């Protein structure tokens, strides 16, 4: 083999190694996030499947908007949006609506706790704000920062809507499940209050009933 051919072969080795290394990094990140979700679900069995369903609806919403966000980043943020609940006292991990004021304050720390946990991985920097702000409301009355309108990162607005829809249509122990149609109607009513009106419009136009099919899809998204 001449020096020129050898050099070409060597460049090919570099390209292949780079591709292997890249896919290894992506796989390791995805596995790490999956492990975090599993850990949360071990501590809070009633939320099993919630993270994956929120990721499912978030990605559908992003698709319908013409993919303004990197789907990989959005999926990651949606999967671990509640990971900060691991930092709450055990008795509060599964609570969606805390009755005592002190408990409510603690539960409302979970987006910040999750963001600070994820900040240990610098590669996640792009989408960590989406986790931190997924409980902001369009009208500015959410938490932790009280951001309003387009001050709220788009990723957070998407996750917030998907999160609320999943909460509404599932039985998490403290509230009964509603029908899918009822969930969509409820989301529609919150346009301009909890949610970005434009996102609500896109969500309402999604073939939600068709995507739902039946409860089996929950298993498919796991």
């Amino acid at each position: 083999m001449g020096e020129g051919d050898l050099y070409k072969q060597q460049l090919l080795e570099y390209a292949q190694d780079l591709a292997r290394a890249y896919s290894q990094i992506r796989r390791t990140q995805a596995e790490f996030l999956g492990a975090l979700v599993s850990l949360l679900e071990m501590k809070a069995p009633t939320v099993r499947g919630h993270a994956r369903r929120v990721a499912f609806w978030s990605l559908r919403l992003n698709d319908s908007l013409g993919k303004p966000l990197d789907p990989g980043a959005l999926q990651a943020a949606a999967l671990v949006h509640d990971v900060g609940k691991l930092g709450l006292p055990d008795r509060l991990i599964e609570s969606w609506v805390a009755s005592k004021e002190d408990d409510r304050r603690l539960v409302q720390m979970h987006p910040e706790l999750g963001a600070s946990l994820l900040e240990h991985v610098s590669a996640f920097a792009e989408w960590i704000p989406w986790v931190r702000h997924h409980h902001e409301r369009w009208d500015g009355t959410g938490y932790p920062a009280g951001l309003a309108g387009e001050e709220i990162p788009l990723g957070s607005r998407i996750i917030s809507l998907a999160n609320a829809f999943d909460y509404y249509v599932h039985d998490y122990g403290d509230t009964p499940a509603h029908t899918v149609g009822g969930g969509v109607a409820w989301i529609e009513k919150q346009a301009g209050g909890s949610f970005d009106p434009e996102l609500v419009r896109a969500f309402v136009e999604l073939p939600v009933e068709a995507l739902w099919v039946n409860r089996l899809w929950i298993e498919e998204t796991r």
Partner: protein
Amino acid sequence: MKVLVIEDEPDMAALLAATLEPAGYQLRMERSGDEVERILAEFDPQVAIVDVMLFGSQADGYEVVRRIRATAGHENTLVVILTALVGAEYEKRALEAGANIYMGKPFSPLALLEQLRQAEIITD
């Protein structure tokens, strides 16, 4: 960790630098091993990566490796022979000359980094 690279082919040397520098290795690149004793004294590397066919040099890579081994303080330096001469015969010659690792070209950059990482764990 300091790595001495003796490679006469500029493109290959550039690829080696592109592999090793981002991984945090401190490099010294040389095109010839004729003065390897002086280079060892100046740079004192923990690793040497040596090409076999060094055009324009008196000493070939095997000779360079033997001289590294004969230099006080470098009896245990990790030596990698990186060569286009591929085959069991050449591997045997490389190891007999005193190399720890033989790699044929084209080599996998990740495999090279992995070998160095493992050597680092052993010496730690």
